[in-house]
């Protein structure tokens, strides 16, 4: 297992505080934050706090994950549309599989993502839970 600590550390503000970016020219919003707007080509984007609530558009239950997630399997991953229309994919937790519904309301929280290798370095990330 190769640790990629700096990558995790760089993304922490996004993982823990859910940051997006908004184009000052055309108003398009992005997650993860971008520096160039694909819609209008503008380079004037600013970071903003994403709404922490959204609804479930679709989901799956991961049964054959990558090595570092094996001990958490099975777990739910969903496509979520936040209140301002920005979408993301995240784990959905604190919910039983048969409780999942299209359009169900969810809110963001911070949870353990996985532990890396023998040294047990723990990574945290956004996950969503039912409201």
């Amino acid at each position, binding site marked *: 297992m190769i640790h990629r600590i700096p990558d995790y550390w760089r993304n922490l503000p996004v993982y823990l505080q859910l940051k997006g970016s908004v184009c000052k020219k055309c108003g398009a919003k992005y997650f993860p934050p971008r520096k160039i707007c694909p819609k209008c080509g503008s380079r004037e984007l600013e970071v903003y706090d994403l709404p922490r609530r959204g609804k479930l558009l*679709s*989901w799956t239950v991961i*049964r054959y994950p990558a090595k570092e997630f094996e001990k958490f399997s099975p777990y739910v*991953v969903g496509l979520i549309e936040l209140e301002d229309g920005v979408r993301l994919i995240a784990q959905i937790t604190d919910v039983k599989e048969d409780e999942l519904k299209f359009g169900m309301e969810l809110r963001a929280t911070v949870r353990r*993502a996985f532990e890396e290798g023998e040294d047990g370095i723990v990574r945290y990330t956004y996950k969503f839970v039912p409201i």
Partner: protein
Amino acid sequence: MPVYIRGVGLTKVSEYWKKSIYDLVVEAGLEALDSSGIDPSEIDRIYVANALGQYINRQGHLGAYVADALGLLNTGAVRVEGTGASGSMAVYLGYKDLLAGAENILVLGVEKMTDVLPTHVYTARSLAEDWSYLTSIGTTFEGLEAILYRLYMKRYNVDQEKIAMLSVISHSHAEGVKHAQFPRKINLESVMRSPIIADPLHLLEIPAPCDGAAAVVLSKKGNVKIDAVEMSTDEFRVFEREDPLWLDAVHDSMKKALANAKLGINEIDFVELYDVSTILGVLELEAMGFADKGKGVELISEEMIGLNGKIPVNTFGGLKARGDPMGATAIYQIIEIYKQLIGEADRSQIDNAKIGLSLSLGGLGNTAVISILSRK
């Protein structure tokens, strides 16, 4: 100046415990060189498509590796990686190199996945997707496909059986195909009863880990012409796309390729899809323009895409049944079109094969490549 396919070679797609990358490369490469009738020393450049070698096999630099394996020293050799689209990117590069003045180019794809456990193959497939915002938070490639699958069924009110049927049809086309990984029929019941990889996606709706190598010699002479190879890209993270069920890179590369080949979609006689899952096959048919949005599923029948159907698809079994040795897959597709066009497709032969089209994807349509070939 037209570019032709002058020779082809491939290994059966399989799990080769006794063969290495070297063995597979030599087998496919020599067959392609021999069938081209040109002397190996006349090869100007080698393009090697490989998706996972640096991760799975700890072997990079496969351009020079392949040149050495074939005994071709002092040759230019380049490895290309675009995950599932690696092979068609390599064909693209060979095609352009010829247009820029080369005489003969060897394009070879190779993948050797079964040296590691399937869990590592699933992980390796996710190299195609964003590490920071998909893979590292627990998403797999198959998981992303499954999320689209559920969304499609809900939005268009479609039963899963209608989509999963693509696997059954593809398998029926692979029956008796010598180079296919699974040259046998399966029925819909067995697909629907197979283990779930990521709900609702079943094991028998996706390709299995496998190994294989395939090669083509491109030249200024030959009996099958390359009419177009066109690439396009889409937003790298599927969740950012305006409609996650619309594969815009497929749509765009199709539009460019048809324009380049000066063809209408109705002139395409058959199609090799990139059915990295059944649902992706359906989305591809829609994005290519063979069906409207939400109507791709209506094509998934023997009457429509069977060998005697309106637009035959996956004539040797596609990714599911012929197999998906990632970096090599798109080159298998090209060779299958070649065999159809020269009338050597055996049991898979369709009538009046004059123009064939193949699609390959990198990731979930992050990249798409369309190739169109025709009989000389």
